[in-house]
């Protein structure tokens, strides 16, 4: 039976990448001077899963590489070897290399093994070197472990009855044992109940295994690692039993391959019992032209040296014994010299798609198999497609929650349905109650569905410890990174888009922010710089802070650069507030780094960072104290799909303000409106002046009244400034689902999207910065407005009056 394994590839890759991340974060945690066994175990488990998976799917490059990794880890875990900082570095490089290999495999490309080979050689070198020092470092857990010679083990293994249900397969463990050395397995079936009482999913068998080879007890224990709690396992050292030599003559019937038996497999099984010599008897081979590729013409002479008894040899031939000539005798019979020695694998007849591939786990085998011709092309396509479809892992509690909600929804629906079948007015209260319940359910359902898209921000943060570590080495700086609020949840889409900007900001903080150690000491600070990443929820936003305790932003050099680049005039420069100065670094092509390093300083990036954040409806601001460090604060909406909105009316049109942008709403009082030169009105809001935007002007629509005294004004925040938007009426506040206008139409200035209201009509969602841009009011800051006399010289107001 052939199974299209490619359908599991995507899952394997995802799990492997997760495993690599786990390894990476554990390696970062690892302190070479005080090794925590649990951390090593986590790394080991991750490596082990990747090895297992890649071997199953035939990604041998990965499997081989991970195997070496695992061997070394195992020695560290067994405390037979210490770990140095260099080892940790090597492991980290190995993680990178594996990630590279896996992503190449995922793309369906041929993996580039050069780095892998190099690293593998490095690991093997360590392993060899380690061998000599082992005994010195080792705290021998078992007296036998020190012996290097052949050792025999007698193992009794009785898995718990639930073993199969938990996904463990004894057969796999037995195979693993067999891979360690020569294994002889006998089954202890005395506890199997009668057929009537037998539960097909329970495991009643036990096994006696004798294992010979240069095997340490730890290796055996590792095989049983997953089942050790629920099983009865006895491992005893044993003197190697006398082995016997068997001589086997085997000539299968010509149809043996057609019936799905493969001699090569049987020989492999025999080889697992002991030392096997095989020679093929080609006498029966016909002329090439008469050769039927699916028939078997060969016979074999086998010599097996093993301590296994005859029954275990018989067992191997169990399936073919009826149709074959088989003689099994003790004592070696030298094979006739005429026969050619052929490696069983190169037997041409064995070619048709290895009939019995190493069986994978039982659930896999239960899947319906596709026929090989179909499986191949679809597998290829699948791998290509898999790259495009991204998936999300969701906690089971979230799903359960969702199912509960749907259950409630169904109940409410049937209740309402019943009400509807024979409705009279007496039952109106019931109907209203039902409807309110429906609303409640819908809202909860909506929230739960949204929560599915939410991921903890640690997904975005996890890469930084590694990055900071690498960068600090490259730059010869000392620093540590602290992550806070890693469990803060964020929409997956937002998370994906914020990753790169964050990388850029952290990199900047490392490169520009943190000073070299000597300078830090000179400034009376700790030698070690500190970068803190912090995330938390605030209102409907997620706030991410990147804090460093470095030199802070240099106001003067930023201004000098800005003047040089003609972003500001020298005269204005002195009057800019700190925030405005810091904001300058987000201009394209702006970099104050004296030397361009390969880390940062090319001035591309900060503008992209800002643009990306704005595109997510977020904002970014910098605060900084010279010599003390700086803090970059990013605010992002929780999700891109749903918005808390304030419905407003202008004339016959309904628009939606994002609720987060509204500061307050108030009645316009004409006496508080002043006209600034050029026709822009400002409103005196307590002790500050805010520019007024008339939505009907911006959108060229007909309002109820053009008289400001009869209108309402919504004060909104735009790029840190307050702006008053004049509307006719405030309507409901509600959550709205954001729909794209661009999908079927195009981007509309001043509109960020559309939504569907309760009555089925479409309402447009306002894009505040867009509206401000249309209105031509930009950066009308407090001091600019209050010093009206100066406004004539203010270029921005000039532009404003020109457009008005």
């Amino acid at each position: 039976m052939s199974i299209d394994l490619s359908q599991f590839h995507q899952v394997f890759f995802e799990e492997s990448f997760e495993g690599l991340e786990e390894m990476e974060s554990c390696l970062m945690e690892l302190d070479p001077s005080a090794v925590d066994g649990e951390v090593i175990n986590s790394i080991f488990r991750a490596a082990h899963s990747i090895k297992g998976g890649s071997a199953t799917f035939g990604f041998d490059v990965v499997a081989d590489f991970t195997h070496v990794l695992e061997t070394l880890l195992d020695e560290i875990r067994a405390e037979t070897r210490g770990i140095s900082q260099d080892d940790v570095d090597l492991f980290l490089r190995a993680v990178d290399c594996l990630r590279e290999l896996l992503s190449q495999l995922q793309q369906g490309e041929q993996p580039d093994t050069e780095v892998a080979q190099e690293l593998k050689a490095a690991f093997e070198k360590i392993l060899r070197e380690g061998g000599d020092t082992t005994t010195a470092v080792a705290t021998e857990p078992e007296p036998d472990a020190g012996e290097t010679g052949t050792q025999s083990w007698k193992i009794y293994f009785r898995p718990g009855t639930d073993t199969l249900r938990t996904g463990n397969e004894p057969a796999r463990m037995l195979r693993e044992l067999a891979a360690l050395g020569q294994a002889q397995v006998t089954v202890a079936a005395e506890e199997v109940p009668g057929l009537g009482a037998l539960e097909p999913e329970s495991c009643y068998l036990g096994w006696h295994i004798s294992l010979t080879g240069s095997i340490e007890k730890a290796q055996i224990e590792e095989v049983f690692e997953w089942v050790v709690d629920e099983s009865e396992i006895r491992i005893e050292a044993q003197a190697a039993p006398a082995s016997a030599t068997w001589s086997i003559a085997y000539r299968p019937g010509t149809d043996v391959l057609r019936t799905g038996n493969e001699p090569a497999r049987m020989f492999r099984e025999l080889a697992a019992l002991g030392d096997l010599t095989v020679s093929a008897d080609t006498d029966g081979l016909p002329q090439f032209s008469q050769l039927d590729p699916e028939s078997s013409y060969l016979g074999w002479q086998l010599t097996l040296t093993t301590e296994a008894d005859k029954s275990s040899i018989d067992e191997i031939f169990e399936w073919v014994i009826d149709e074959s000539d088989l003689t099994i005798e003790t004592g070696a019979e030298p094979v006739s010299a005429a026969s050619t020695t052929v490696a069983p694998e190169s037997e041409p007849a064995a070619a048709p798609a290895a009939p019995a591939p190493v069986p994978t786990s039982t659930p896999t085998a239960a899947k319906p198999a596709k026929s090989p011709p179909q499986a191949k092309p679809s597998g290829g396509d699948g791998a290509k497609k898999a790259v495009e479809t991204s998936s999300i892992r969701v906690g089971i509690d979230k799903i359960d929650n969702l199912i509960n909600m749907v259950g409630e929804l169904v109940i409410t629906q049937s209740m309402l349905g019943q009400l509807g079948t024979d409705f009279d007015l007496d039952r109106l209260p019931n109907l209203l109650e039902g409807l309110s319940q429906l609303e409640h359910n819908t809202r909860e359902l909506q929230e739960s569905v949204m929560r599915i898209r939410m991921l903890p921000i640690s997904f975005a943060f996890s890469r930084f410890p590694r990055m900071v570590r690498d960068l600090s080495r490259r730059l010869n700086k000392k620093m540590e990174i602290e992550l806070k609020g890693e469990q803060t949840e964020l929409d997956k889409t937002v998370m994906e888009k914020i990753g790169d900007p964050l990388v850029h900001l952290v990199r900047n903080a490392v490169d520009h922010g943190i000073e070299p150690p000597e300078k830090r000491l000179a400034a009376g600070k700790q030698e070690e710089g500190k970068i803190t990443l912090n995330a938390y929820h605030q209102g409907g936003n997620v706030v991410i802070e990147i804090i460093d305790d470095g030199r802070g932003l240099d106001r003067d050099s930023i201004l000098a650069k800005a003047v040089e680049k003609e972003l500001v005039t020298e005269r204005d420069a002195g009057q800019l507030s700190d925030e405005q100065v810091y904001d300058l670094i987000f201009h394209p092509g702006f970099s104050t780094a004296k030397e361009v390093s390969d880390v940062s300083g090319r001035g591309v990036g900060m503008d992209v960072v800002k643009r990306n954040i704005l595109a997510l409806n977020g904002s970014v601001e910098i605060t900084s104290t010279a010599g003390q460090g700086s803090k970059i604060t990013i605010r992002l909406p929780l999700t891109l799909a749903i918005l808390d909105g304030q419905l407003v009316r202008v004339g016959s049109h309904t628009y939606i303000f994002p609720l987060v942008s509204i500061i307050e709403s108030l009645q316009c009082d004409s006496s508080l409106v002043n006209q600034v030169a050029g026709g822009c009105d400002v409103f005196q809001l307590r002790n500050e002046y805010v520019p007024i935007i008339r939505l009907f002007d911006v959108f060229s629509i007909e309002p109820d009244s053009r008289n400001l005294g009869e209108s309402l004004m919504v004060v909104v925040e735009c790029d840190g400034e307050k702006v008053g938007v004049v509307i006719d009426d405030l309507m409901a506040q509600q959550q709205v689902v954001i729909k794209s206008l661009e999908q079927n139409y195009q981007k509309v200035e001043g509109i960020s999207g559309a939504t569907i209201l309760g009555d089925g009509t479409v309402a447009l969602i306002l894009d505040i910065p867009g509206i401000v841009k249309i209105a031509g009011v930009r950066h009308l800051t407090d001091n600019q407005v209050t010093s009206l006399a100066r406004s004539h010289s203010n270029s921005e107001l000039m532009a404003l009056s020109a457009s008005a």
Partner: protein
Amino acid sequence: MQAVNVGATDENDQLPAEQHQGDVVEDGDQYLTFIMAHEEYGVDILCVQEIRGWEAATPIPNAPSHIKGVINLRGTIVPIVDLRQCFGLEAIEYTAVTVVIVLKVETEKGSRIMGIVVDAVSDVYSLAAAEMKSAPDLGDAVNTDYIRGLVNVDGKMVILLEIDRLLSMDDIPNLAEVSRQVLSGAADAEAQ
């Protein structure tokens, strides 16, 4: 007993219909035609998603006048184009019989769904490519790229529209403006 009868009639109804369809397919592409200002226009029927009555659309601020706004088509936001204004025809009052044809248009940015407002839906014709005459060259002033061809059906001219091209232009051409320019250009020339 009743059920059997119904089934039988269904079968009888279907047979001629199927035969009819078979004929049509042999003849060539099918076009849905509609009427605007007494002219008959046709669009490839495979583009047509549905035909619905006019309902009020939400206007888009600062949009060209031929974009009537957007409607909610089962959760999708669909823009509505007034084809009369697009073609520079006189605007008429929308009534209960005004029809919106919802079309699926293939553009460079993927497929888009759009609605066009027309006076009335007319007929479905199957037309062979051979019957089609190419659009007359009206010179540089008038863009005729969006016309697939002209065809004569029972003595009447039907203008077949290349709807993908017409609606995929980022700025849907306002032909009224084009014609006005042509006219004013002509007037200027006369004045000189």
